[in-house]
């Protein structure tokens, strides 16, 4: 399968924050959800993918090309959605189109108008009057109007109301239908991912923890519940993270089958949510500090 984005051995540090030996790939034709808590390096990674930042070490390739030689070529094919308004505020959407159109060689005015109609965006109102949802639709309209093959979204659902979030997820699914596009989006609202992501990429404290097919998470990972007597130095090693209380323990394992072999019917296993993964990974790390 073809990779649209490839990060190889990427290091980036500023101040106390460090992204270390980041290796990750984003597959063509799929939606990849990019998860991790606040301040673990999601935005930094996205900025590296868009050449808004340059790595201290390592390679970043998009469409198999390097930014050093092919910066404009790559950016021609990327659409972006940020979690803040990045457009000029004192102009209208019609004027914005005038500014952006000449930048893209594949700009399609008919398509732009189609999405403006579909998303019910006002052409004559100033951008500063747009709500968060409208801004998101504006960014998407721009991305789709220049036939972006890769759409990178940084926290697109944060600050949106639940109804609009679902609407957005439907839109994204629709975009994917022709099979030529790739979407990479970061979020910490994990229920979004359960619905649409084909792949999940998880990072924690500047490190890539895993990239997996969404359905595989259910097959490999499990939430395990049992009584506290089952835990000792050896069995605790089976878990990524643990939470103990007087009534028992709850933990996350990355190897569901092995837990069955070790504990048999003495424990109950449940399907983990992406939130569980994030929570117990963080907890597990605290344990070893």
């Amino acid at each position, binding site marked *: 399968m073809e990779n649209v984005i490839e990060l190889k051995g990427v290091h980036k540090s*500023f101040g106390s924050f460090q992204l270390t030996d980041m290796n990750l790939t984003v597959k063509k034709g799929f939606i990849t959800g990019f998860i991790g808590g606040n301040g673990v390096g999601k935005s930094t990674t996205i900025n590296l993918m*868009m*050449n*808004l*930042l340059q790595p201290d070490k390592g390679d970043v390739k998009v469409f198999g090309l390097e930014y050093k030689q092919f*910066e*404009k*070529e790559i*950016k*021609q094919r*990327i659409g*972006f959605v*940020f979690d*803040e*308004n*990045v*457009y*000029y505020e004192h*102009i209208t959407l019609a*004027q914005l189109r*005038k*500014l*952006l159109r*000449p*930048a*893209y060689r594949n700009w399609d005015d008919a398509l732009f108008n189609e999405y403006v109609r579909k998303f019910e965006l006002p052409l004559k109102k100033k951008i500063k009057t747009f709500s968060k949802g409208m801004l998101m639709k504006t960014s998407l309209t721009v991305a789709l109007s220049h036939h972006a093959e890769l759409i990178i979204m940084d926290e697109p659902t944060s600050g949106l109301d639940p109804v609009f979030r679902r609407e957005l997820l439907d839109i994204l699914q629709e975009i994917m239908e022709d099979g030529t596009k790739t979407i990479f989006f970061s979020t910490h609202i994990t229920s979004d991912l359960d619905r649409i992501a084909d792949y999940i990429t998880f990072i924690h404290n500047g490190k890539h923890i895993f990239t997996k097919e969404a359905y595989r998470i259910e097959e490999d990972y499990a939430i395990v519940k049992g009584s506290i007597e089952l835990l000792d130095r050896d069995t605790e090693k089976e878990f990524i993270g643990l939470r103990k209380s007087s009534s028992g323990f709850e933990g996350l394992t990355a190897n569901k089958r092995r837990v069955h072999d070790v504990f048999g019917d003495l424990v109950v296993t449940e399907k983990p949510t992406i939130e569980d993964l994030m929570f117990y990974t963080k907890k597990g790390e605290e344990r070893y500090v």
Partner: protein
Amino acid sequence: MFNLLKKDFILQKNTMIFLLPIFILFLTQNSSSIWNALIFSIALAMNAFAIDEKPEINKMLNALPYTRKEIVSSKYFGTLLYTALVVLVVFVWNISIHATLTSWKEALLIFGLVMLAISFLFPFSYQFKSQYLLIGTLGLFGVTMVVARIFDLNMAGTLMSTFEYMVSLNGNEILLLAVLVSFVYLISWAVSLTIYSRKVF
């Protein structure tokens, strides 16, 4: 880069329409047209700079298919265009009202002074923020006042006589100055580019 220049023109259109009558008002006051042209050219160039100054806007510009080199270069190139526009207005004004041709030396002097001023203003604004320019300018102005007081200079008079002196220079001397100013402008562009390529938005 042409697209970036066009973008700045579209965004500045209203400002320019607004400034034109004010500029003409200034010209009717019979003060030095060189001085007026200098002020208005710098105002346009700095306004174009300020429009793109917010970090979010820089994020967008850098996500669009433009390079950082193009983004910085467009500001330096745009300055020359705005100055040309202002000089054109002066030219038309002088022909239609005073029935005189603006001398090429005068036009060149305007260009030279704008380029010299921008050579300091742009790198300063890229490194800090253009909002600190006012403070910086005020500080510089204060220092100039004190110096003028100490040496008993008439600043406005000195400035005007300097303009007159420059316009009276011969062709070769002006050519030398033009080369010198262009060199400063190029250095300034290189410095701004270095500052801007290290920026994080």
